[in-house]
């Protein structure tokens, strides 16, 4: 089962530290020294603010990913506990973007690349769970209110187990109220 990062709207204050943390983790610390327009600032999670809530939304690393299913060039695949996009293969056809019900995929330019008409290549961009990056998902690490948590298979399973035991207990109490 894949892992995923999820935000808690009760803790999130909409400050977007996670969005910068994501870019820094993927682009590397040299971005604090180079021309800010020489790389693509492409956070892989997106802050959502409505009257009711503020929380970032990102890829849920589904088990039967709709994006993987529609990709015409097989650019999307499972790697470790995450679903990742090979941006070299991707040609920006947006099928995955249309297929994803969470809006977790957007299209971003690849800095320094160029198409035949001179414009930059534009490819799909989504959370890759910081796969290959030490100390795990940067957004979880930098969030000042711990609103983002990494949910692993083990944690999800144990949570389900706990809920089932609780359900069993309440069922038992219904039948034998005095005991």
């Amino acid at each position, binding site marked *: 089962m894949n892992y995923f990062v999820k935000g808690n709207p009760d803790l999130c204050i909409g400050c977007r*530290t996670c969005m910068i943390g994501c870019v*820094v983790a993927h682009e590397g610390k040299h971005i*604090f*020294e180079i021309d800010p327009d020489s790389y693509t600032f492409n956070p892989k999670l997106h802050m959502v603010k409505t009257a009711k809530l503020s929380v970032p939304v990102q890829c849920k690393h589904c088990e039967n990913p709709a994006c993987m299913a529609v990709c015409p060039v097989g650019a999307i695949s499972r790697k470790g506990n995450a679903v990742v996009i090979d941006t070299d293969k991707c040609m920006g056809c947006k099928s995955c973007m249309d297929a994803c019900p969470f809006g977790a995929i957007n299209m971003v330019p690849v800095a320094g690349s160029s198409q035949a008409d001179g414009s930059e290549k534009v490819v799909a961009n989504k959370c890759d769970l910081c796969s290959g990056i030490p100390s795990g998902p940067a957004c979880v690490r*930098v969030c*000042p*209110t711990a609103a983002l948590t990494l949910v692993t298979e083990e944690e999800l399973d144990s949570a389900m187990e706990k809920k089932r035991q609780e359900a069993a207990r309440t069922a038992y109490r219904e039948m034998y109220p005095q005991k």
Partner: protein
Amino acid sequence: MALKQVQTTCPYCGAGCQIMFTVDADANKIVEAVPADGRTNAGTLCLKGHYGWDYLNDPQILTKRLRKPMIRKGGKKSPLEEVSWEEAISYVAAKLTEIKEKFGPDSIMGTGSARGAGNEANYLMQKFMRACIGTNNVDHCARI
């Protein structure tokens, strides 16, 4: 490269968060900023605390760091010319003295600074306005 750890207070909002910086002393540049265990921030930082330090290497995105004293020698609309500190200090001292004698100390207004300068600089500024110039005309942007 000689890396050293320096803890300091964030220059931005009033929460007074403590940040631990890794500094490369030889290259004279900041390598990393991570939260420190301060009384108010307890090991957390916001986006300005985490990522608000690279203005120090003067990327000139919006404006640029001032590097040398400058004077508009030809009056209000003339260009700024770089001068030495001695010339700048004596020029300011002379002009302020001249205006003080001509229009009195209360014709001079000074400001403190609520930002990076620090308490000691603000103390000296109000002492300068009060003891050297002779007026209480000192204020700063707490009011705006």
